[in-house]
């Protein structure tokens, strides 16, 4: 049953980009803060998709309230669901590789891109995040809502100072 569900989710995530092929990604006007490359269908800069803050803000927005093991007190994160972002770029794979400004790198599988899963946050407590504050982008999970995200694997996937994503070929 569970495996069936997983398979169904995988199928949906795999099929979604096909529907998104027709979409055209706008080009960034401000400073590019995220570059997605690899097996993606939609691009706006050669074979990569680049995003400025405005583009991300224009996309589907979710807010996650949770504590983290790196911060003190309850935090409010606002950002784009990772799934929505992958949809926007027409990701054609079930695995992505995220890399940070500090060159930290981690693989995030498609099972984390689901609803109620990881988001790409661009605001913490209502303010844009500087690099000093783990900005400008931070992959955050709703740790408090689901105990399954309170694992070291998830913590390792919760990458901050994110600036590059490569969807696995």
């Amino acid at each position: 049953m569970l495996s069936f569900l997983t398979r169904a989710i995988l199928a949906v995530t795999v099929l979604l980009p096909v529907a998104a092929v027709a979409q055209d990604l706008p080009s960034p006007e401000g400073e590019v803060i995220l570059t997605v490359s690899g097996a993606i269908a939609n691009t706006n800069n050669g074979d990569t998709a680049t995003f400025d803050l405005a583009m991300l803000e224009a996309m589907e927005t979710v807010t996650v309230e949770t504590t983290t093991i790196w911060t003190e007190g309850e935090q409010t994160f606002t950002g784009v669901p990772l799934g929505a972002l992958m949809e926007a770029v027409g990701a054609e794979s079930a695995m992505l590789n995220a890399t940070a400004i500090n060159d930290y790198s981690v693989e995030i599988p498609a099972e984390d891109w689901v609803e109620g899963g990881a988001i790409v946050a661009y605001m913490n407590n209502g303010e844009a995040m500087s690099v000093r504050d783990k900005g400008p982008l931070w992959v955050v999970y709703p740790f408090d809502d689901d105990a399954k995200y309170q694992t070291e694997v998830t913590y390792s996937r919760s990458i901050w100072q994110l600036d590059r994503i490569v969807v696995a070929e």
Partner: protein
Amino acid sequence: MAVTGTTEQLGRPWRRRGATVFALACCIGMIAFMAWVLLREIEEVSTANSDNLQWSLAQADVEFLRFELAMQRAQDDPTRVDQVRRRFDIFYSRMDTIENGIVFRALRRDPTYDEPRAIVRAFLQDAIPLIDGDDETLIAALPDLSERAQAVSDEVRRFSLAGLAAFAEVSDARREDLVRTLILLAIVLGALLGGLVLVALAMFRLSQIAIRRSDEVRRTSARMRTIVETSQDAIIVANTRGLILEFNPAAQEIFEIPREEALGERLAELVLPERSRSKARDTYFRFMNDGSRDGTGALQFEVTAKTRGGREFPAEVAVNHAEDASGRQVHVVYMRDISRRRAAENNLTEARDRALAGERAKAEFLAVMSHEMRTPLNGLLGSMQLMRDQDVSDRQQELLSRMEFSGRLLLSLVNDVLDLAKYEAGRIDIVRKPYSVPRLLDGVIETTAPLASKNGNVLEWRWEGTPAEGAVGDPRRLRQVLLNLVGNAVKFTRSGTVEIEAEVVGTADPQLEFRVIDSGVGIASEDLDRIFRDFETLDSSYARQAGGTGLGLGIARRFAKLMGGEIGVESEPGEGSLFWLRLPFEPADLSEPEQTGTKAEPAPSIRPLDILLVEDNEINRLVAREILEADGHSVTEAVNGRAGVEWANARRFDAILMDVSMPVMDGPEAARTIRSGTGPSAATPIIAVTAHALPEEIAEFRKAGMPHCVSKPLDRNVLQQTLAEVAGAAPPVAEPVAAVAPEAKDDPLLDAENLARFASGKSTGLLDRSVAEINWDIDRIAEATLAPADLQQVVHKCAGTCGVFGFTALRSALAAVETDLKRETAVEPETLAALAVLWEETREALQDWRAAQP
């Protein structure tokens, strides 16, 4: 063996169960505790509170070095100043993470970590204005900043190393914790395993026991089944409503009903005949209906049962209450056909009854024969007495004496045999009535005095200890026993003393003891046992000389036993003997007044009268004549009413004594005739003489002209009183009616005073004749075949005769019968038969009385 095991197993389950419950509780508690510990552990392990912190700390070092590198490069190439900013920000962010992360917070208390951290933080804070400033300023400040960073780089290393050490410790502690938990878990698991093994062992044992028990139960039930099926008795199991649950082969055979048809039927309806069912249900089968149990034990009774074929038979039933396997009450009914046993019992009973009846018939025959022999013997003796009054020669006198001696011996022999036979026939009843001990002893002395004086013996009696006046018992039998003892004593003593001692012994269970002590020949000790046996005489020649059958002491022993007492003897040959008689003593109050009334008052003497005596009974005439002539009156006799009337018409009398019931013409009729006539005696007072009269009859006598009435037997004083009154010399006496009321119960058998009048030598013949007459009459009465009228006549006549001789009890009884007959009340045959018994007793008393006469 098996029984002991069972009791032990029965005795222990509570302890065992307690231990089991305790062990179980321990197990559950242990499991719960372990579960809690493990859950806590799992909770702790399942949610990580850090990512790879070693990496974070190492990264801090790396990122700081990169920041330094960026600064040096920017000094060479100022276009790369942005890289300095980027590296600064990255390190700053790392520092922030290390300062704020949950896992690092605990480290802040550690100075080896916190001191270098504070230095690094201060450096960063100082650098911020430069980093955030414009490029020229930053580039200008780079050499200086680089130098400062150089100084701080050791601090970065220091706190990252301190953090690593601390985390290694934390990690060790965590591991130790986990190991502890796992060891605990292992212990608990071991304990549980041990417990499980124990439980398994216990279960195994229990199952062994259960198997053994079930084997036992199977064997027992097989045995029970064999018993039930081979039993000769019908065994029926019924439930509390009386429905049959089990019906064994014997039952099927006895009741001729197959088991399948019997099951579920009502027990009572199946095995009992219809007529006794409802009774059975109410009585011994009641437990079937309401489940009540009479007592806890088995119920046993006998019933008449029936087979299906309708044969009825007596059955012995035993009912036990039990519980079946499911704990319900059942009745187990055992029934046995006892018709054969019953028949055997009946045969036995019949045989015994026949044998007893034969014995009794023999004894009765003996009694009757003895009884029948006494009458002619008495006649012979009486005649011999009369003959002595005749003119006989000396030789004849001597022959008469011998004949008389022989006759008396024969009589006493017959009397003894009669007593014995009556005893054996069970015809002797012991009465219980109050009597006076001194008077009884006086009587015994008086009776035996003549023989005592003949043998030159001094005879007396006295009280030993406190005298007791009255006692309750059978004075006649007591008298007989004492007469025998004293008689023996005076017979076997010559010129000695015979003493009777009376004493009340004991207080709790007082006994009246009589001791007859003589100074006679005594009895050898070897003979002491023999003397109370029947037909034992110690010395036949002497016995012949003394007279006796050898039955006397045997009879005395029987009577003593009958009276609830015992008799015995102590003796020394040549010294004398002591016979003792011990009876239960019950004191009696004899303080009731002696017969008072007419006897007490001396009658006034009156002038001699000329009296007409109208009386059909010769004996009564004789008695009345004697009394009247003794007072100096002249008497003219008439034998019936008509003769009386003729005499009254012929001459004048001063008084007429008129019997009431007479043949030819009765008293009242004669009186009326005399009164209504004009003869010389028409005004003569007429005194009615009646054995007993009803009040209404006395009124009738008065109407007939007989205002006075005296009752029979004639009492001298009453007669004198009445005559004095008639002659006008005395006030009228009390109504004689009081004397009429018959009180048979308390009347003595004999009135010795009355009897004494006929005891003189010349009257013995009359007594003997009267006894024979009464004998004849009583026989006819007791046969109960006479017509009422005839019966009344016979009863009346017989009562009259009895009255004359003072056979008071019999007379009263006869009078009572007569009253009933007069009132036309039916007289029971038993009442008439009782008269015969009473007469028997009277005769015995008479016998005693005669024996007591000198």
